[in-house]
């Protein structure tokens, strides 16, 4: 994976991650977050942090892939496998801590986060796999 691919993948995944999170956390789960007493009020958070965090997360996803790519297939399926593995590692048991530690945090939300994050990373992986796929030689 060359630096051009790394940069392109980082930008594309950062944008995808932001759109995904607006829909998943902002639209779908936003009303639920407002009912959880341990979570800070949405209006008190600067949305720029979430945009920045998605770009940082996208960069790390791509950078770690670049360090492990010799073990992975360089195609969308290889990327999906990487995304799935990372998704499981990031969410289990990490997302279950919330249900144990946060005041008023419903267990179903932990499972929704696990599913949501795994789907997000699988999408990341599929896109990354497309970007790093070796080009076929033309006749």
């Amino acid at each position, binding site marked *: 994976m060359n630096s051009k691919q790394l940069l392109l993948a980082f930008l594309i995944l950062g944008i995808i991650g932001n759109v995904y999170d607006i829909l998943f956390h902002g639209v779908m789960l936003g009303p639920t977050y407002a009912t959880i007493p341990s979570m800070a009020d949405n209006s008190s958070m600067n949305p720029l942090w979430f945009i920045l965090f998605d770009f940082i997360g996208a960069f790390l996803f791509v950078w770690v892939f670049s360090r492990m790519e010799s073990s992975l297939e360089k195609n969308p399926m290889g990327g999906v496998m990487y995304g799935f593995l990372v998704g499981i*590692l990031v969410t289990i048991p990490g997302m279950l*801590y919330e249900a*144990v530690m946060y005041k008023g945090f419903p267990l179903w939300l932990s499972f929704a986060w696990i599913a949501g994050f795994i789907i997000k990373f699988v999408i990341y992986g599929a896109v990354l796999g497309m970007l790093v796929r070796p080009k076929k030689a033309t006749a």
Partner: protein
Amino acid sequence: MKIKQLLLGTVIIGVIWNIADFILQGIILKSTYESISGYVSMDSINPVWWILFDFIQAFLVTWFFRKVMSSFERSPQGAMLFGVFLAIILAVPTVFIEGITVKGFPMWLAWLWLVQYIIYGAVAGYILGMLSKPKIATA
């Protein structure tokens, strides 16, 4: 890496992380957690959860290592690098999101968790490297 090594890695890493978490989270940081308004009282949480979560994470890290170990030098130092990469992708940006979204969560704790992840990852990697190191033939 064989199944036996997978199980051995899980057990060794799980035990080390449990001891470290007992000291760090259970003793040193306990009063900090008690002061975070978004968290439930630590005494109300069944400690079996913490033990179980550490072993689940140890299993997943070892399992992931099996999938990508060919990308790293087959030595404790090579696997330590794997552990550090994994720790970074697991901790960033997750721990900082916690700092923003949980009521009363101090940002210095997010940084401490990041350092903790990296140390735990390096230790896990070192152990996995020891377990997967090729045996030198004896005369």
